[in-house]
């Protein structure tokens, strides 16, 4: 049960890294957390706080449950043989969480923000599913542990680069973060977060970082060989420390995501839907097809 605090810690570190790249103090996430803890919570007229808080609480819970099947090193906290599908299901639960958080306050900007989860989710989900199923096809298993183990000789990031890039994009999308921050966009005064203060707001904002971190962690077993050292380095310089390799790779993935956020502004949902259906889906299908043909051959 160290999983949840661990995820909070790593998500906090990731948020600190982001603060540093934005020219702020690395302590900013801690300051913000304390600030939100000290703030009053708030309600709006004719709202549904119960439902909203179910959603707000569900977000970090979904992130922890998604992380539970990710091998942090060579073993997963819960070694589920259909871990990839489980991960997918938990990440979709997060859609529901954000939508309900936007619905609850009964206010226009908040509802419109929650509503944006739908075009976002429906646009990224198909390429995302194809991207996570492609390594599963290559490894012949839906278990992240088995998929990581199947990359002894060659990382899937090298063998199926399109799927890796698509996965990175969908990590940002599933955490409605960076280019996909429209559900919490500034144009809607914070969107789904527009009416949540105090602890409620903290759950939403921290839950988003936790989701981002958990999803980034899944990239390690799916595409970067899990807790094993890179195949090219020869003998393992840190034998017996798969968690260390896992951490290094996770940091690299998070760094790539931060670079993505800096490079690409927030996309309107109509723009992203166009990109997803015209470019990403065909790309994902082609990548899955190539991998399937190679595996069958």
């Amino acid at each position, binding site marked *: 049960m160290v999983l949840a605090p661990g995820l909070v810690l790593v998500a906090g570190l990731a948020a600190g890294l982001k603060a540093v790249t*934005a*020219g*702020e103090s690395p302590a*900013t996430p801690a*300051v*913000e957390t*304390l*600030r939100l*803890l*000290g*703030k*009053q*919570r*708030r309600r*709006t*007229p*004719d709202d549904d706080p119960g439902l909203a808080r179910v959603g707000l609480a569900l977000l970090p819970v979904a992130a922890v449950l998604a992380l539970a099947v990710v091998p942090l090193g060579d073993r997963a906290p819960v070694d589920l043989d259909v871990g990839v599908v489980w991960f997918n299901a938990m990440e979709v639960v997060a859609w529901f969480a954000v939508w309900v958080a936007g619905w609850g306050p*009964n*206010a*226009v*900007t908040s509802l*419109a923000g929650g*509503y*944006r989860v739908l075009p976002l989710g429906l646009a990224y989900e198909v390429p995302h599913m194809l991207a996570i199923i492609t390594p599963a096809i290559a490894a012949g298993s839906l278990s992240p542990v088995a998929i990581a183990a199947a990359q002894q000789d060659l990382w899937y990031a090298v063998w199926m680069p399109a799927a890796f890039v698509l996965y990175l994009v969908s990590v940002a999308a599933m955490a409605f973060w*960076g*280019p996909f*921050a*429209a559900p919490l*966009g*500034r*144009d*809607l*005064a*914070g969107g789904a*977060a*527009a*009416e*949540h*203060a*105090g602890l409620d*707001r903290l759950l939403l904002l921290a839950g988003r970082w936790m989701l981002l971190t958990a999803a980034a962690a899944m990239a390690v077993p799916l595409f970067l060989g899990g807790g094993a050292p890179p195949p090219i380095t020869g003998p393992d310089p840190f034998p017996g420390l798969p968690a260390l390799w896992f951490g290094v790779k996770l940091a690299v993935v998070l760094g790539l995501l931060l670079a993505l956020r*800096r*490079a*690409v*502004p*927030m*996309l*309107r*949902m*109509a*723009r992203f839907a166009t990109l997803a259906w015209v470019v990403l889906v065909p790309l994902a299908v082609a990548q899955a097809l190539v991998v399937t043909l190679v595996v069958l051959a």
Partner: protein
Amino acid sequence: MVLRSVLARRPHVLTITPATVDLGLRLAVEAELARRRWPEASAPVDADVALVLGTPGPRLAAVVRSVWATVPAPRVLVAVPTAGVLRSALDDAAAGLRSSRPRGSRASSLSLDASNDALLPDGDWADHREVDVPPEPQMADLAFYDRDGLALDALHVALGPVLPHWPAGLVAHVTLAGDLVTDAHAEVLDVPASVGPGSRGRSPLGPDRTRLDVLTRVLGLLGADHLAARARHLRDHDPEPGELTAFGRRLHRNRPVRWAVRDVPLVGGAVEERTLADRVAHLAGALGGSLPPPVRPTAEKAVQAMVGLELGAARLVLAALDPDTTLGAGPVAAFAPPEVTHHHH
């Protein structure tokens, strides 16, 4: 208390700006907040400090009241009538957040609702209309127009004047079908509606700083934080012409930004550009050059250009058009709430 001292280290600031505010004051506040690294609050719930610039008229004062009622405690309301008192006012705000009890001694730093009246000008309170807090959607009308010809439920809401990157003092009375703006009218608080035809570019800032001001808002709405910060820095720091053209070129070369503003029409002829992408490209391309300043349409024309767009695109359009609200909404009929013609369900 630890929490309170943490709060005072990095308070989120909500600025409330009257349409008639002195531009210099607004820019000074933005620059000072950036210098202190105090983030801009995205909404009243996100705010620790509510900063009222200039001298709000009676309508905006009513808005300040209703906004202040939604700011969660601990909180401080500060008035900044002139740029001269800005620093001391912000210091007082931080002190007010730090102390567990509000300081009653300083007129500019107040924490209790009861004492807020001292801060606000006298006015006609009968006209109290909640503007920022969207009215709860009672029963929706049928939409007059929407994309798919379905005539689904529509909401009548007032957007502004307290929204991030929003023109000062502007309220847009819009009809929404889902997130689609189907009708929109402008109202500028405390400025009579038909003062003039818009400034046609007579901004006291000068051409380049006006462009940078618009770009700061557009980039801020796009979430391109580092580009927005750069634009604001250039706007506030008397840059070399070379720096300006370099920034313009950098924006022009930035494919993701170009792509993100594509496919949004600018309808109604408020400005000569036909698309949002053109408008942004012209604003960026003219930086450091000798072209005349960008046309700033009247509020009504700019708000009309939101019709037919999704809310996010509509916000970008409004920010890029940058209506001149000092002259009121423009030559339009005064806003009247739409008649409820047809009840549904």
